[in-house]
């Protein structure tokens, strides 16, 4: 099962959220979020639609700006300082629900763009890294195609490889499989499970409970902008304590 054998309390925190609050206009979307993520930890976040899951992980790489509280990533406190933000984004990879590959660039160029321009990796070296990552996600033969010529599952695997090209320390996933046809979900989850096994720190918004059971150290349930409950996956699924968690689990387990 998951890396529960390791004593996580002795490992350093790589992400800390302290009393984070965020509003969209008058709407209080995140309320007093406290979260500590240790190095190598895998966290799955679930919760009903509109509960603020995406907003939460998008605050971690500053795609959204929080208004109160502190977010510390790798020892750097997020602020409006552009240099800080760019430094954090180099360390944090993100995979989106809708892939967001660049349609005007080939797969290979999608992968080498950030290493070349952000990390100043020489082009040849960047291409070697890219090809090895494409091998890892099992689509090296697509390197010279354009995103529009790939299936959804292939595109999402490219998106994962693209994020990995920057050699990030942390990976954020925002519902990476929910835009995919059922038969493609597995190929993406397999890549993510492999990644988890290699020790990547991961925060993953998903409703794939099989994935949570297989790799998560902790499952977090969010509702109405709050963290309602969190626990190890076994416990979380077997004995949910909060009523809202029970209701939610009842719904999604019923549907699956």
């Amino acid at each position, binding site marked *: 099962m998951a890396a529960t054998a390791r004593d996580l309390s002795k490992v350093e925190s790589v992400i800390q959220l302290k009393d984070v609050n965020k509003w969209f206009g008058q709407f209080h979307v995140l309320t007093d979020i406290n979260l500590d993520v240790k190095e190598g930890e895998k966290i799955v976040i679930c919760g009903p639609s509109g509960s603020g899951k995406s907003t939460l992980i998008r605050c971690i790489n500053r795609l959204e700006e929080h208004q109160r509280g502190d977010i510390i990533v790798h020892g750097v406190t997020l602020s409006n300082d552009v240099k800080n933000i760019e430094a954090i984004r180099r360390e944090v990879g993100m995979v989106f629900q809708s892939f967001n590959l660049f349609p005007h660039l080939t797969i290979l160029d999608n992968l080498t763009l950030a290493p070349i321009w952000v990390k*100043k990796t020489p082009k040849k070296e960047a291409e070697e890294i890219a090809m090895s990552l494409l091998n890892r996600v099992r689509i090296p033969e697509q390197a010279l195609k354009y995103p529009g010529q790939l299936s959804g599952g292939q595109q999402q695997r490219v998106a994962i490889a693209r994020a990995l090209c920057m050699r990030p320390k942390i990976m954020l996933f925002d519902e990476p499989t929910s835009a995919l046809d059922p038969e493609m979900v597995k190929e993406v989850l397999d890549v993510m499970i492999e990644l988890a096994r290699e020790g990547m720190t991961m925060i993953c918004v998903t409703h794939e409970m099989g994935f949570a059971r297989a790799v998560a150290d902790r499952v977090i349930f969010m509702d109405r902008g709050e963290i309602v409950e969190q626990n190890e996956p076994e416990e979380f699924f077997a004995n949910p304590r909060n009523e809202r968690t029970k209701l939610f689990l009842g719904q999604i387990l019923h549907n699956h």
Partner: protein
Amino acid sequence: MTDIMPVGERQPIAPPVDETGPLGWARKNLFSSWGNGITTIVLIGAVGWILAWFLDWALFTANFTASTGAECRGSGACWALIREKYRYIFFGSFPYEQHWRPLFAVIAMLAMLVMSADRRMWNWRLLVIWGVGSFVTFLLMFGQIHIPLSLILFVAVVGGAIGLTLRSALAAANERAAYYALIGIGIVGLALRIAGVLPKWSIAIAPLSYVETSLWGGLPVTLILATYGLAFAFPYGILLALGRRSNLPLIKGLCVGFIELIRGVPLISLLIMASVMLPLFLPSGTTIDKFLRAQVAVILFAGAYIAEVIRGGLQSLPKGQFEAADAMGLNYLQKTLLIILPQALRVVIPPLINTFIGFFKDTSLVLIIGIFDFLNTANQALVDPNWAGFPGEVYLFAAFVYFIFCFSMSRYSKYLEVELNKGTRR
């Protein structure tokens, strides 16, 4: 994926053949019903009749050889007028025996445009093409060019800065050192020049007699106004469009204000302002060439329209593209140049070329401030009392020349769309 399933015993089946042929096609598309058939016949008849009348006028009864307008009367089109006046129409008041100069200037500009139309040239080569092309064009038109030292130094600074920003990631150490050296030499040189240490020196390239802009006319004028008008208005429009979407209120406000102001005013009034009012504001003694003023007015005007077209393209991009670029740690310049603009510009090729075509024709409005562009020289050709009374021929001829240019642009738009979207669509 790309694996092909074994076909086995199954014989490949050819797609159904279209058995109809041209006759079948006509029956299906032109004569599918009584009403349809009658419409087709009436339309063909009408087109044939007009065509016959036109050919009769323009070719069979036309006069190609008359030496005065009087001889032309009574026959069809008087193409003899064009034959008599074409050099004036094409080159205006440029000294007659020097007409080879604007002719080669036009050829140089066309070569420059045709070469830059090729996508493979869209890199450093484009700068070389435009540098050489422009130099040849203006050397031929002016006859003499003086390049002041300060301009050379300024170009060095700008060139170095552009090289440094655009190639910051890719340049090797010595390439970067070269850019720094360019900037350094440029800045030190400019400082010394301003301090008066360096003399007011310029390179004079003067192989031909000087011809001032007030004598320029005809096709080269139209081409220069349109080519350089659009060449400058395009990057300027991109900056305006980006500025309009900026988060900085001051920049945004300036760009919105400029765009709305320019769009709310007819080009003619802008041209008149540039030609009549601008000199009033300048300190006495300084003059800016009238041609240059018209050129600047065209650039400002076209820039505002191009900006709005490009803004449409920027808005059509999904938010995810911006977010993905941000999440990868690209900075604003990288995000804009590598991700946003390449996509936004592809989307707006048809409306952009449409705007270009519009402006190519709108340059003819400079006749209002007494610049002799192609339409204006054509107009002037009618003034000759010997040849009075044949405006149709002259305007038809002018229209034909404009049409060649505009139609080429339109075809190019089509080609570009296909070329740039190769592979990117499923």
